[in-house]
């Protein structure tokens, strides 16, 4: 998949602003960004559901403007909002969807059985979808996207709203698909998800790509090895930060805490103490994509 100057405008508003990216077959590629960054708009363009405003886009080597149906034939889409039929049973949702792809009923039923086992919903096959929990519906949406055995799977926030157990289940399933050679494109605002799932990712903000690379590279490039989080009783973080100037390589002032970037967290905490400051709480942690994002945009990823 290749995008050059890919742009999406809604009236005067530019949701995706001339982004470039390349996604290789078999790769697992992430789009990370806060609300409104343009992730969904990008997913809708690459899944050939939303026309490109300008720029070029090739998906599976084809042009979405002319070969939309042919491309979609080979794509599995997990949209941000579920589009399940709540009145139909779990199984019928898969059957109906498979029929859109012109698959014979027999083939769909065979696949459906495997898929329902795969997402651990086999015992609910003949129940209506409506009363299922949000996480079960999400898993069903994922199963449904696999009925057509896609080469390319596009997942728009696959695990938002899932409990930790369900998230791990989904990650595990996606990892297995990747091993089978399916190309994964995932959007998320969870750093841990991106680190777990993605070989490579881009960070989007305000419709633009602000950084690109494998997660460890991004962390190495834009953050230090460790981060010290300090919380002070009064909200005079900016003032405190001024006093700490020079101790850390870099700092970030958040409404509720102060982040200090360093390669040796323990030593920095010592130094802070020696300078006469008494933080209410201190935390030394490994730096993450959240820090990369914070550094690049000055804002937190999950608001």
């Amino acid at each position, binding site marked *: 998949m290749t995008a050059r100057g890919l742009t999406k405008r809604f009236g005067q508003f530019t949701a995706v602003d001339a982004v470039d990216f390349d996604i290789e077959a078999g790769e697992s590629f992430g789009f990370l960004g806060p609300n409104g960054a343009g992730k969904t708009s990008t997913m809708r363009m690459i899944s050939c559901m939303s026309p490109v405003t300008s720029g070029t886009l090739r998906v599976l080597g084809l042009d979405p403007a002319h070969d939309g149906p042919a491309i979609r034939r080979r794509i599995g889409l997990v949209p941000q909002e579920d*589009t399940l039929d709540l*009145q139909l049973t779990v199984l019928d949702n898969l059957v*109906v*969807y498979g029929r859109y792809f012109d698959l014979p009923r027999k*083939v769909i039923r065979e696949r459906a059985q495997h898929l329902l*086992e795969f997402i651990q919903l086999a015992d609910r096959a003949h129940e209506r979808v409506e009363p299922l929990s949000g996480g079960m519906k999400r898993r069903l949406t994922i199963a449904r996207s696999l009925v057509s*055995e896609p080469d390319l799977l596009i997942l728009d926030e696959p695990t938002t709203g899932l409990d930790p157990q369900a998230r791990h289940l989904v990650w595990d399933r996606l990892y297995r698909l990747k091993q089978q*050679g399916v190309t994964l494109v995932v959007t998320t605002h969870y750093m841990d998800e991106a680190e777990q799932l993605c070989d490579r990712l881009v960070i989007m903000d305000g419709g633009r790509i602000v950084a690109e690379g494998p997660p460890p590279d991004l962390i190495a490039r834009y953050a230090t090895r460790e981060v010290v989080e300090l919380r002070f009783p009064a909200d005079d973080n900016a003032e405190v930060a001024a006093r700490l100037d020079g101790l850390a390589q870099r700092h970030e002032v958040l409404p509720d805490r102060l982040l200090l970037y360093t390669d040796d967290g323990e030593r920095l905490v010592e130094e802070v103490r020696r300078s006469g400051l008494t933080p209410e709480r201190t935390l030394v942690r490994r730096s993450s994509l959240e820090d990369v994002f914070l550094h690049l945009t000055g804002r937190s990823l999950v608001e």
Partner: protein
Amino acid sequence: MTSALGTETAGLGIARGAEEPPSLRALRYWAYQYKRTWRGSITTSFLYPVLYLTAMGIGLGSLVNRHAHEVDHVRYLVFLAPGLLASTAMQIGGNEATYPVMGAIKWMRTYYAMLASPLRVRDVLFGHLGWIAVRLVTVSGIYLGVMAAFGTIVSPWVLLALPAAVLTGLAFAAPIAAFAATQETDTAFSTIYRLVLIPLFLFSGTFFPVTQLPAWLQYVAYATPLYHGVSLCRDLTLGQLHPAGDVAHGLYLVALTTAGLWAALRTYRSRLVV
């Protein structure tokens, strides 16, 4: 599990002779939906004509016959039945093109599920209207069966009343679906019922010939689609053909259906493809 990976062989393994037309695949969805409610729906399709023909055709009809002897040279029941057939088709077309269309866009988002597959907007639209046509065939077919049981069938031309009724229903369904696809909420739908469908039901010749209306209202009636549907269904059912007039009625309904389809393609595209 078997591979979830779309290999070439897997693709070839399922390849069959002919592809099913995409709009037919979309239509299947509605058939699946219908599986849940078909019993109630078919029962209603029987009950409705039985109740109407009994109450209005026989009950009210005996009164009418006593005073007017005949309406358009036939008993009131025989006069009324084809009018109700056309009106029922209008109602089915209207029902199926309002809330289900809104639901497929906003509530269940079924259209978007379809559009993530190889189906295109026109397949989605034709699939839905095709399903509405299937419903119209069933409901009108049942209606004609009930009419036969009431002894109101007097001419073999009645066979053409079935497609005429279906066409009447589609002449409403297509433009109404076009309109529904532009709506954010369902509030306008009750306005359609109150200001369009019910007045048409009452004044388009279903219950009495429009010639009973004041002259200016007659011209209004001539302009409405239900008048043409009722007239066509009645001429065919009674076997009282007026070739030029009936062709004109048919053309009017075909034109309205076509215009509705054209408009719906546009409103569906601008709504669903953004």
